[in-house]
Structure formats: C-alpha cells, structure tokens
C-alpha cells in the first residue's frame, strides 16, 4: 500500500527542517504558478532520496512532478526545451557529483540561451543540487561545486543555510527569470527552525548576504553548511571575549561585495571558510573583493580555511578535510595576532 504523503500544511509558525521547508517551497511554487514543473531521478513516487519532493506527485499529478530516466544531461537539456516552450522547470540532480555529466548542457546551453537569442528566450530554470560534504557519503555524493558554477556567466548561484532562508530563497529562485543553481547543504537537511511559511515570500535579493551574528573583532565569511560551523566557532570564541561576526554570503554569484566591505570595514579582519579545495575556490574571489575595498582598513591579510586540493575524501577522512572548529579558531587567532613585520 502506498501511503498518502500529501502532507499536512502548517497554518502558522512551525518547527520545520530544511528538508521540510524546501518541500513546502516547492509545494507553494507549484500552487502559485501552474507552469512550474518538478522532475529528476526518483523525485516522483519516492519523493527524492532526501525526500525534498515528498508528496508532490500525489498532490500535483504525474504531469507536473515526474521521474526521468537516469540521465543528467538529458534532464538539463530537457529543462532547456521546456523553458523555451514557456514552462518553469525545477529539475533535481540527485547528488552534486552527478552534475558533471550535465555540465555541457548547464554551461553551454542553460547559461547561454538568453544571450544567444539576444534576450528573446528566457531560461527560468532552478537546478536543485544537494551539495557539500559532511554526511559520510560515498564518492561523488559530496562535492562543493560553487566556484565552478559561479565562474559561468549567465548563471546565478545560491545556497541557503537555514530552513527559513531555504524556503524563501527557493521561492525566489523559482520566480527568477534567469537560471539559478540552488545548492542545498545536505548536512543541514534535518536541522530545524521555527518560522511561518504562510507569510509572503521575503525578499532576500539576488547578490545580498546576511549578518547572522554580529561581532567586532573579525568577520567569518561562510555559506551553506559552513555557516553553522562558524556560528559554533563564534560561540566558543565569545567565551574568551573574542566577538566574531558571521556573514552568510548566501548568494555565491553574484557575490555581495558591498556587504563584505561593510562587515570587514567594521571588524577590520576576515576569515573565509569553505569546504571546496583551496586553489581557485570562491574564497580567492571573496578575499580579493575584501582587499580591493578594505585594503586601508585591514589589520591583517585575509585568511582562508578551506578543503584541500585533493578529491573530496571518503568517510573517515572527511573530518580531516572539512574546515574544523580548530582550524577556523587557529585562523582567527592568526588574524588577531598578526603584526606587520
């Protein structure tokens, strides 16, 4: 017997996990706009391997929410044609590492058709991509591809760090007329937060960041799954009287240069934290933006705490690879103790 999973809708404030918040965002997007189509591998009856699309097929039918054959390039290529026919595709690629077979369609087609058609064709596609490590997944099931996508003209890239933001950012991404790569932080899927998803969609405008904790001694810049880790670091540092500001970059393309400058202009020190490998990672971009705008105010060079330039490692080595609380604290210490030679 298949259970009925159409799901009860919260009527006001509710404790929701990120996975539930995203599910609600998809539900509401489908209700508000009957051109929204949700598809991908196992998103229908199963509700996705992370259950983000749970119950959607039962509620909206097999024409609006459907399983595709197992072919990522086909999924993204089909999204392009659907967008050209006036639909609003919200494809899912099951895991980050499997975006690679679709890179050609994403980079050469999705990102460029508005440009190639001189603005006549729009690509309002939201690619939902479960992203980042930290869940001890097998190879190719945990990757940080943000700098790859952020480098591509024509794409927007965003990653939520909390259920409430996840809800609003996904609604906004789906409403956006341009293609958005929506990177869902896997290790945060089950993290809960209380908010009211029946309120109107909040404007978290493209290219804006958010100060999630205020502080005056240094700014930690993070996104996606590392935001929570940085908040933990700030808690610990506060015990020693060090007040760290935590900036959730949120939009990874375009990046909020003004928000970075405002925060670091106040704290005068910055540590960028990301899971992706160091070389040519988004941290390089962020550091440069900070240096360009805050060179006069900076009391120390921008520090980066990142993954290493190695393939994303498997389970037991993951903790060595991901920016740990210790590594972040050490970088904070380095920046606080920095003296010009």
């Amino acid at each position, binding site marked *: 017997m298949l259970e009925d999973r159409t799901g009860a809708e919260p009527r006001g404030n509710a404790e929701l996990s990120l996975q539930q918040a995203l599910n609600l965002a998809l539900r509401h997007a489908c209700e508000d706009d009957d051109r929204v189509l949700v598809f991908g591998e196992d998103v229908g009856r199963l509700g996705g391997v992370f259950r983000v699309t749970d119950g959607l097929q039962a509620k909206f039918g097999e024409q609006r929410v459907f399983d595709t054959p197992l072919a990522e390039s086909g999924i993204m290529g089909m999204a392009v044609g659907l967008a050209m026919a006036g639909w609003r595709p919200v494809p899912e690629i099951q895991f980050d590492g499997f975006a690679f077979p679709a890179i050609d369609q994403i980079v050469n087609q999705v990102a460029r058709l508005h440009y190639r058609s001189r603005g006549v064709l729009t690509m309002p596609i939201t690619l939902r991509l479960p992203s980042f490590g930290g869940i001890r997944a097998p190879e190719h099931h945990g990757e940080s591809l943000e700098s790859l996508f952020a480098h591509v003209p024509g794409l927007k890239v965003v990653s939520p760090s909390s259920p409430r933001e996840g809800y609003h950012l996904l609604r906004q991404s789906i409403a956006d007329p341009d293609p958005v790569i929506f990177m869902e932080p896997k290790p945060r899927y089950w993290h809960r937060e209380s908010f009211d998803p029946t309120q109107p969609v909040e404007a978290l405008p493209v290219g804006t960041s958010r100060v999630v904790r205020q502080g005056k001694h240094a700014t930690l810049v993070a996104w996606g799954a590392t935001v929570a880790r940085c908040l933990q670091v700030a808690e610990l540092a506060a015990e020693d009287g060090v007040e760290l500001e935590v900036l959730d970059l949120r939009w990874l393309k*375009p990046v909020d240069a003004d928000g970075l400058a405002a925060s670091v202009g106040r704290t005068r020190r910055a540590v960028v934290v990301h899971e992706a490998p160091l070389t040519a990672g988004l941290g390089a971009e962020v550091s440069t933006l900070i240096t360009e705008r805050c060179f006069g105010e900076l009391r120390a060079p921008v520090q980066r705490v990142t993954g290493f330039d190695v393939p994303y490692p498997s389970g037991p080595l993951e903790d060595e690879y991901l920016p740990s609380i210790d590594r972040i604290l050490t970088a904070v210490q380095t920046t606080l103790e920095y003296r010009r030679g």
Partner: protein
Amino acid sequence: MEKADLRELHRLMLVARRVDEEAIALQRQGVLPGYAPMRGQEAAQVGSAAALDLTRDFAFPNYRDLGAATAMGVDLVGYLSTHLGTWHGGMYDPKASRLAPVNAVVGGAVPHAVGWAMGAKLDDTGGVAITYFGDGASSQGDVHEAMNFAAVYRLPVVFFCQNNGWAISVPTERQVAGGSVAARAAGYGIEGVRVDGNDVLAVFETTREAVLRGRDGGGPTVLEAMTYRMGPHSTSDDPGRYRTLEEERAWAERDPVARAARQLSADDVAEAEAHAADVVRQVREGLVTVGDRPTEELFSFVYREPTKALLDQQHAWKEAADV
C-alpha cells in the same frame, strides 16, 4: 506546405543553393570569417522543414542548416550573422521564426527538442519538435538520452539525422555502429525510417508522416536522410585529404537540386533562378551593411536584469574606453 509541391520545393532548394554559394564567395572575399557549406543537403533540409506547420511546430538546428532556415522563411541575414561573427546563435528571432538559435555543440540541441515537445504536449498545442543533427552527432550521449526520453514519454519529436556520409574526416562506417542511425530506433521501441535524402519529395512525405505521427500521439520518429555533403566540412577544411574524387563525382550525379529541376519545365527553372538571384542580392547587401554590434552590447543579455557586478564591470570598461 500542405501537400508536396515540387515547384515550390525546388524554388526553396535553389535559394539555399545560391545563398550557400554566395556565403562561400563572401568567405573567400573576407566578409564571412568562416562558413559551413551545405551544398548537396538541400533536399534533406528543405524537404523536412517544409513539412512543418510553423504556427505550432518548432525546429532545433545545428550549424549547417541554411536550407531548413530558408524553407522556414527565417531572415537569412539574421541567420548568417552567426557565420559573420556578429552574434552567437544568430540575429533572427527564434520565437517568431520557430527556429532555435544556431548551435555549435553537436547533439547539444537534441534534448532541447524533447523538452520543448513535452511542453507542447502538456499545453496540448499539437506542436511537434524537429531536431537536426549529423551521423557524427549521433555518437553523442545526449542524442541517446534524448531518444530514450522521447520514447519513454512518447513525445512528438522528429529526430532528423542528415547522414551526409562524413563527420569532418570520419566516414559513417567508422562513426555509427549497429548498421544505421535509423536502426537505433528499434532499441527505443520507436519508428525508425531511412529515406533518400536527395529526393526532396520523398523527404517531404516521410517527414510529414513523422510529424503527423507525433501530432496524433504516435510518439517520436528517428528519420535518417541519406545524403552527401558535396563541399568541404567548413571553409577551412580540405576534403581531398580524406575522400576520393570518384566518390564526389558519383554523388554529384545525384545532385538533389538538378534532380528536382529535371522534373520541371524550363520556364519554372528559369523563374526559380531569377528569384534565387534576387534573394542572393538582398542577402549580400544585408550582410555587408549589417555592421558590428555596438560595443556596449558586450554586457547585454547575460541576465534578464544585469547584476551589480556586471554593471560595475561595464562602468569600469566604459571609463577606460572613454579615456
């Protein structure tokens, strides 16, 4: 076109033939930086595109489909502006003309046709998507993925393979396993048809059947038009390095345009030549006057609304340019 009309199909083929020749001449004169000639493939392209209903169907080309553009009434200057290097994808309106932007990734547009067809089916417009690709492109994974998707969902798609014998220097037998591209259809449980791609009436009729099959819910068709690229792969290619003169001569005897002309009156052919000469003159004039795009356009059309970072870069560029 409701019914096969050889006079009209020949007229369209002749326009494509003469514009193609003009494009090569313009390349030799340094006007077009490069061009991919389609001489020999007129019947395949014109015959298939003429079978579409432009009020509801949609075509996805690659880089060698001047004949399809011609039969669809696309603005040829806008179409050739891609080869002029003016704009990727061309300067014509893909929505109004029902022809997607020119695509240089072989096989890249094939899954787009599948998505478009799904959209048309959901909207119940009766629209059918046709996608053009070569025998070389049929080796791409995207083409397989697209055929399988279209078959699983029973979508109105015509996979129109122009098998012109060569993928640059690689002959079909070194490119396609399993006998033929059409034979692959069996693996997807869909219709697969081979047609003489130099017989414009046969191409028209076969495509029309495939389009109607799609329209009536009969699902996709793989259509393989057997034809020949009489010229080089591109204006910088030398076919003498990989194929024989005998082969080229043998195919020249099967020239699709001459073949159609033989079945028409001398008056009809003369009228078609005069018409083609007229179009060529207009295209040449259009191409030499099209001019460069305003340099500001470097920053246009990347997003619906430009990002602040992009506007900042544009501003910095402008300041530097004005100094």
